[in-house]
């Protein structure tokens, strides 16, 4: 049991020069390090492309992870194949890392007929059961208690699977955070609580969310292990998440990880941070970008160079371009799909309403697969 009330230590592995601290280095095999760096770059390029598509009016919305790639991809990379991710809504990079094809993700961004959630949710509200990845909802923190219930069920059934749940520091103010942390503490569930402290809940700074000195220290009140880590350090995030997963699997219960990071963009494409952020502060945060740091590491290891980066960037750009084109060409979901999956079998009133919708004139301009609106 921790006796420290405030956590001052922040686990860091990578220096800005890309040199790993041997004391904490998770010692990734070279091919894993390269794979993760490539995925980081892929996530960043895709993120930037999606913002452009939104600005061009081609997709309705995007909520990105610019600057937070290390504390999204690191924890995801630390999981075993049978572990689960319960997402907040910035974790598309983790979903792709877990195996969702780029095309499937872009079909979700366009809400087209090929979208796994059948165009029923706004962009970035994906669902990835085949990849052991939960379904995104917008209300804050609801996934926290669900992740606890899921991992509790796994524990009851003797299944070694651990659940990783993502949320932002703003969510620690929600009742769901308290409920989830409390249940997890009481039942010692194999849950890893991953709080991405990016400093901002839309426009409200972290200092306005809590009077606690750290977010991590909240864990102590729930009888839970806590750790703070440099959220811009991919290797540190892998290290602390691995440790937390192993504790969970050994029956030692849950861990709260506070990943200290920065949101290098607005909250989403619907947000304009100029109203509440100043440029000097943002420039200082950009200087701590997790990507150059990880790049310095793979370059220093002799695993990566500019030629490879250029080739990979071109390849990714091409893949994104082709997938966007295909997503834009796909039709909108058929009208009847609106009335399906409300219940396991369609009750009489929905059959009546579906018939009514099928008789109604179709509105123009909305509901296309994405082309041009």
């Amino acid at each position, binding site marked *: 049991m921790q006796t420290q009330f405030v956590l001052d230590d922040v686990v860091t592995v990578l220096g800005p020069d890309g040199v790993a601290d041997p004391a904490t280095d998770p010692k990734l095999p070279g091919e894993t390090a390269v794979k993760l760096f490539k995925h980081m770059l892929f996530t960043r390029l895709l993120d930037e492309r999606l913002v452009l598509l939104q600005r061009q009016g081609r997709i309705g919305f995007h909520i990105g992870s610019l600057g937070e790639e290390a504390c999204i991809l690191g924890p995801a990379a630390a999981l075993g194949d049978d572990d689960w991710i319960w997402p907040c809504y910035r974790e598309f990079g983790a979903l792709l890392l877990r195996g969702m094809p780029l095309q499937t993700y872009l079909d979700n961004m366009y809400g087209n007929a090929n979208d796994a959630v059948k165009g029923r949710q706004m962009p970035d509200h994906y669902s990835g059961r085949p990849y052991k990845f939960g379904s995104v909802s917008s209300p804050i923190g609801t996934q926290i208690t669900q992740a606890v219930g899921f991992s509790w069920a796994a524990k009851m059934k003797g299944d070694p699977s651990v659940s990783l749940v993502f949320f932002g520091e703003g969510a620690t103010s929600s009742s*769901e955070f308290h409920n989830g942390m409390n249940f997890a503490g009481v039942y010692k569930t194999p849950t890893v609580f991953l709080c991405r402290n990016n400093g901002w809940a839309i426009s409200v700074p972290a200092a306005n969310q809590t009077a606690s000195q750290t977010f991590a220290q909240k864990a102590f009140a729930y009888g839970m292990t806590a750790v703070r880590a440099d959220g811009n350090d991919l290797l540190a995030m892998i290290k602390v998440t691995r440790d937390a997963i192993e504790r969970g699997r050994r029956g030692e219960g849950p861990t709260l990880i506070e990943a200290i990071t920065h949101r290098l963009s607005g909250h989403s494409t619907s947000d304009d941070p100029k109203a509440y952020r100043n440029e000097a502060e943002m420039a200082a945060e950009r200087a701590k970008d997790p990507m150059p740091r990880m790049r310095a590491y793979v370059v220093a290891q002799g695993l990566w160079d500019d030629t490879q980066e250029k080739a990979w960037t071109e390849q990714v750009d091409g893949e994104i371009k082709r997938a966007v084109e295909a997503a834009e060409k796909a039709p909108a979901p058929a009208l009847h799909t609106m009335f399906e999956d409300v219940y396991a079998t369609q009750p009489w009133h929905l059959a009546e309403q579906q018939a009514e919708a099928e008789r109604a004139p179709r509105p123009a301009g909305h509901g296309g697969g994405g082309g041009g609106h």
Partner: protein
Amino acid sequence: MPQMNMVQAINDALRLELKRDPRVVLLGEDIGKVGGVFRVTQDLYKEFGADRVIDTPLSEGGIIGAAIGMALYGLRPVPEIQFSDFIFPAFDQIVSELAKFRYRSGGEFPAKMVIRTPVGGGIRGGHYHSQSPEAYFIHTPGLKVVCPSNPYDAKGLLLAALRDDDPVMFFEPKRVYRAARSEVPEGDYTVPLSQAKVVRPGQHVTVLAWGAMLYEAIEAANQAAAQGVDTEVIDLRTLWPVDIDTIVASVKKTGRVVVVHEAPKTCGFGAELIALINEKAFLHLEAPPVRVTGYDTPFPYTLEMDYLPLAGRILPALIETARY
């Protein structure tokens, strides 16, 4: 066949299902050692242990949120909310999450569970132990809503709900938990969801009721008979999706309808029932449909019997509607 009250019948259904299906887990406040504040889960903790009959921390949002996670895993959780008045801390999890999970995930994540909760007034419980919040849940796409009136139906409907593929809100009318007794078969049987029951056939006027108010409707119908008014009493049993065919057939026969419920009048389920009747049987109506309900006030303590739509208030509605 044994006689049981509703508490015993529900207990019997839960025991059967805990035995039959290893995925079933009960969780809630005080449901373990003490067997629930109404003793509905009495002795189940002893029989099935603390892992399947779980005394949880005092947090409705936590109970339902965790139960959803269990359901996503593939268990069949049966959370109890101690009084339906206390369900609102879990409202977001029920309305935004549970009800929408199958839909929003394109069918990847169905979340099957039965939320049991005592409902209704007449037990001197004041605002917070008496309300009837069913309309909120009927209004939420994705949920089924059940309210039995007697022990036989309670056991059969609960077993059907526990095996259903959708989330079910199971409202237990606490005023008749022990007052209503009936013969209840031992062993397994189900009462299908979405089937109403004509409990008293009649020719002149239809009364729709459920839960504890069914008995008031029957009492009013018996009194109306003495005045020459022959009332058909229908126990809806499942509120949503409602058995529209039974309702429409009855209203087409009688041409007159009275709806009874404890919840406040405005936007109560009675409003929806009358709208449906207007849509489907308007030309058969011979009198304006009438609602006899709780008033649009918070549920009162001292004057609760004036608030409730008891037989004394239903009777004149039946007579006036029949003679309109």
